[in-house]
């Protein structure tokens, strides 16, 4: 009787030990995965900051102004070229065709 009980307990012990090993292995595998994702996140973060930097470097007002003038041959309108449209809220304005 005692022998049988001991045997069962021993068996349980072995099973639990094996489960421990498996779960430990699982943990590590998941941890590695997590770590990988973390590294990716960090890399994206760094890339984002570089892209942001690049975007803002390309879009500094001096450059846009220069491009508009030289490449697109744009210019600021003179005051007499500016027409001011008096805007009043009115109910029955046709809205189609009036793209904002």
């Amino acid at each position, binding site marked *: 009787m005692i022998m049988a009980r001991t045997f069962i307990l021993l068996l349980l012990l072995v099973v639990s030990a094996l489960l421990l090993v498996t779960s430990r292995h699982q*943990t*590590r595998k998941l*941890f*590695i995965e997590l*770590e*990988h994702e973390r590294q990716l996140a*960090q890399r994206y973060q*760094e890339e984002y*900051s*570089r892209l*942001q*930097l690049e975007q*803002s*470097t390309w879009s*500094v*007002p*001096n450059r846009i*102004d220069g491009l508009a003038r030289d490449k697109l041959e744009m210019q*600021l309108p003179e*005051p*007499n070229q*500016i*027409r*001011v*449209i*008096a*805007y*009043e809220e*009115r109910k029955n*304005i*046709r809205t189609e065709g009036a793209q904002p």
Partner: protein
Amino acid sequence: MSIGALASRRKKKIALQIPQGRALLVFVALALLYFVLIGKAFYLQWESGDFLQTQGAARYVRTIEIPGYRGRIVDRMGEPLAISTPVKSLWSFTEKLEMSDGQLKELAGILNVSPRSLKEKINKAGDFVYLAQGISPETAEKARSLKITGLYDENVYRRFYPAGELTSHIVGFTDNKDHGQEGVELARHDLLAGKSGSRRVIINRKGEAVEDIAAVLPPYQGRDLALALDLRLQYLAQSELKAAALEHRAKAASAVVLDARTGEILAMANWPTFNPNSRDQFVPARIRNRALIDIFEPGSTFKPFTAAIALDAGKVKPDTVIDVVDGKMTIGKWTIHDAHKNEKNLTVSEVIQRSSNVGTARIALTMAPEYMWQGLSSMGFGVSVDTGFPGEASGRLRPAKSWKNIEQATISYGHGVSVTLLQLARAYTIFTTDGELMPATLYKEEGKPKYGKPVITPETAKLMRRILKQSTEPGATGARAHIPDYHAAGKTGTARKPEKGGYSKKYVSSFVGFAPADAPRLIVAVMIDEPSAGKYYGSAVAAPVFSRITGKALRMLGVPPDHPVAQDLFEYGEEIVEET
């Protein structure tokens, strides 16, 4: 001897009676060996335990840095003005560096330098050398792939300023250890600074982390900081200012744009300027934020304050006539003059419009010195604006006790008192609001109502708006401040620079004003230091700059014109014929 014979001998020996002593001897010997083993175990554990543990850990434990970034500085629209981004540095202990000529050549190619200069760099260096600093991670990766013995890389964060010289005076810069050195970078270093954390992990044979083994030291991420600045307006102000400074061959120039309702600093430009991305331009004359740090005598731009105090006190009314016909006024042994002689006496409004020194002095002398001092002080003169910017000057307003009549007279038209351009611009908020002095703020503070300090009555503020509006009409000194499509208001200033024992022949031209005159949105202050191309009057030098900056800024902000040049207004909905 054959194997068979040996075996038979053994059998015989076993059969023999073993002497007692020998068994004991063997036992003792084995026991001793056993003790040696235990001893060794103890030795390993106690004596060299630390050493071995370190060695073991070195093989499976790694410390990983968790980066903590320095926060970004952005403008009010979120446009980045300062960003930290990771870069790599390649370093080596010179003695341990082993590389073949081929590798040297390849490395030089990757780093985009000549092999000779790279070689020289290594030879000249002491024990330690940076072969490259601030290179992109990709370049560093390529360099690492050469597998040069003794060559290491490290992560560093480099600060970049995409807007460059446009915002350098305000944003400032950091040193190569990421510590703020100037400007906002210095003023708000504690908020911006990030701190890297670290964690210790166990790695497997592939070098992957598999387990955290100690408490993680969390990194501290620097906070982003938004300025009140509008990069577009900053560009406008900066480019107009630069053009004017070059045109008038000025020594320096500054411009400040404030939100007329809240006092927020929307733009603050200085010339000369510097590029924060290249350190060889870091000379004090260039990096100084003159609008905040330099003080100057404001001259006539100060007159409206004297008038406002007198009007507020009821000492004069806008139509009170002041005697200015002489064009001069003698106080003790001093005589003060008007720049342009007037044919007839002027009203208080006209004194401001025509910028009469004599008239302003007479208005000032209707008040007790203490009263006038109190008024000027409550407008922020002689007191720091308190933006928190490093090195900000508070200007100078001497205590009323030391005033004699002549001091009171000269201070009334802006001499013998000194201010920063920001201080001057900010004091104009009492005219653009209902008489309240607004705090001039450098940072964007959302959802926080701005409270001003009441200084003059709303009625006086309105009166002053009218007077200053008339000052930019044809015939008045500020006529060149006229803005197409909008009513402008403001005051010119021309002051000689004080020198040892008097005033020099060098001038400071200024203009401070706001627009639209009746419902002000912007306050713009312009100061041109030592224009030397002939013209030096504020009306000729600074007023046109005001006009250009303010006009463009109002259009950019979409402020509806209150005085359109083309009078034929189009009704909304009316057909607009395209020009062909």
